């Protein structure tokens, strides 16, 4: 597949953004600077970025509790995100949302979500909306392997199949839901096989290979946009951190984690781009520098931003 250079570079930059953003969140959380809970996307960067790179700004995504990666991949600003994580008035959602509830409809981001699987019908409805409004928009719906056992997965995919909705269902199979290995509570190996139930294609891809994810997503987005209906893409991947920051990692074999870290998505991709002459080593470094500078500025923005006024808690409920 012939992927445009800007797309290849965008994939690189956004994967790096996620990597650095999440690493920083990890440190800031450990330092006690961030309230609440955070669930990091480290190790899964290629999934969100590979999918979103195949989409337009005007397309929609729905995200999960592990949402930072999706939001950055869709073009989210690290400063506005970080300010939200700090609970600041300048955050994407004025501090009302926090890590699990970032939304920015201007970039098609219909929200991270604290309820496992809740994004699935919402994405499906956005797909119905796009179809009804004949807007040509496509929706990517991110959810985990755990979420694929929720009833709404079934209901939503059935409806999307029946109505040929323009939705790409992206299952991030990182083998675990919190501390439970999902092979213990699901008989079948590949979640993509469930596509059969809904008369849609089911595809398995290596979720740590950004190009493979991009190609699968590109095809699915194309199908969706041309009215041929939804696709279920299962991306095999792994989260490097525990379920949420601060949780002890007692339930995963260390060798398993080590093996997946070895198969990390960014370095080989970087190598590939340099080898193929898409970017030079110097360009790669420049991109990384830019990303870090942007992140530093974002953290600074977040830190120096004002807290919301207490009374602002009463605003924004009713339209």
């Amino acid at each position, binding site marked *: 597949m012939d992927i445009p250079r800007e797309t290849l570079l965008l994939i690189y930059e956004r994967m790096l953004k996620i990597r650095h953003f999440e690493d920083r969140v990890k440190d800031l959380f450990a330092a006690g600077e961030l309230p609440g809970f955070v669930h990091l996307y480290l190790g899964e960067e290629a999934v969100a970025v590979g999918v979103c790179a195949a989409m337009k700004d005007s397309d929609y995504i729905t995200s999960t509790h592990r949402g930072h990666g999706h939001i950055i991949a869709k073009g989210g600003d690290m400063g506005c995100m970080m300010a939200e994580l700090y609970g600041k008035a300048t955050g994407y959602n004025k501090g009302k949302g926090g890590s699990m509830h970032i939304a920015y409809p201007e970039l098609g981001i219909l929200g991270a979500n604290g309820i496992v699987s809740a994004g699935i019908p919402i994405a499906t409805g956005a797909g119905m909306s796009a179809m009804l409004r004949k807007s040509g928009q496509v929706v990517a719906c991110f959810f985990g392997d755990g979420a694929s056992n929720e009833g709404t997965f079934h209901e939503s995919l059935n409806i999307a199949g029946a109505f040929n909705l323009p939705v790409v269902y992206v299952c991030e199979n990182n083998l675990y839901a919190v501390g439970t290995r999902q092979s213990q509570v699901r008989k079948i190996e590949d979640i993509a096989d469930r596509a059969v139930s809904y008369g849609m294609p089911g595809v398995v891809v290596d979720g740590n290979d950004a190009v493979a994810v991009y190609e699968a997503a590109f095809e699915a987005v194309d199908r969706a946009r041309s009215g041929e209906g939804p696709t279920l893409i299962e991306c095999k991947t792994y989260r490097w951190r525990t379920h949420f920051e601060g949780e002890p990692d007692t339930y995963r074999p260390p060798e398993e984690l080590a093996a997946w870290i070895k198969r990390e998505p960014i370095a080989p991709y970087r190598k590939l781009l340099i080898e193929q002459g898409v970017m030079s080593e110097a360009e790669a470094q420049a991109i990384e520098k830019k990303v870090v500078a942007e992140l530093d500025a974002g953290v600074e923005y977040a830190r120096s931003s004002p807290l919301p006024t207490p009374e602002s808690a009463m605003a924004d409920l009713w*339209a």
Partner: protein
Amino acid sequence: MRQLFYNQAIAEALAEEMRRDQNVILWGIDIGPYGGANACTKGLYEQFGPSRVIDMPVSELGYVGMGVGAAATGIRPVIELQFSDWITLASEMIINQAAKMRYMFGGVLQMPLVIRAPVGGYLSAGAQHSNSFESMFSFVPGIKVIMPSTPYEAKGLLKSAIRDNNTVLFFEHKKLYAMKGEVPEEEYTLPIGKADIKRPGSDVTIVTYAYMVGKSLAAAETLARQGVDCEVLDLRTIDPMDREAVLASVKKTGHLVVAQETWRDCSVSSEVAALVAEEAVDYLDGPVVRVTAKDVPIPFSPVLEEYVLPKEADIVAAVNKVLNRVSV
């Protein structure tokens, strides 16, 4: 004035709003060619076609959740649940998503979502087809709850609900679908959040809503013949509740009966009584009395259901009790 059935008034409201705004889209079960289990969408499929009136599979969480996603992206979905009893299945999407999304996202989107569903008993429909869950949803901020008691109100309030940019639950009473009443031919809407005095009176306030309005009015007539002058206040909107109207009436009469069809605990009747205990206790000349269903699931056999659900006679007895009056 022209008379319509309650379900016709609903169909007319839907049709008018669909003509007014092409983003008003209906979905639900059997609402297309079938015309809806209660005929509330009769003729709409023929008039507006399959992309405005959409039949869904039996998947409540899915298609209500789709309403959330569609409402967030420019559609104004009006969703029918065949009975409100299984709103339980969709409640996640109402309580944690629709009700919260605008707020927790800091106001970046709107949620113009209407969910219509029939409520209520008196039909020997059994424990799973006779529920009224308005109290549970009134508890949750971010949802409006409307329960019209006449065809006139059904039409006027449904039109307002569809134009509202927030999530509205619109509960229609099954026994009212066949009620006939005056509905103007001219365009009108009714305000959400305003109660209506269905019968002015000076001795006792009866706060009520939905199907119990009729029973309350009947009780008021009976009592009027005995020289007791009841004010019957129809809440119409359960949430936001018209607290001023309740307080004004109680301050006038000094006596409060709350009459609702469903169970007592943590219900609308609790809220009305609590409101008065907070804001108008000094005006009360006696205890508050609540008329509600007895605290068991609604049984099937007519003789049992009649025992469990509130009757006109219960309202009469309640008024006599608040007035410390021996029943005649």
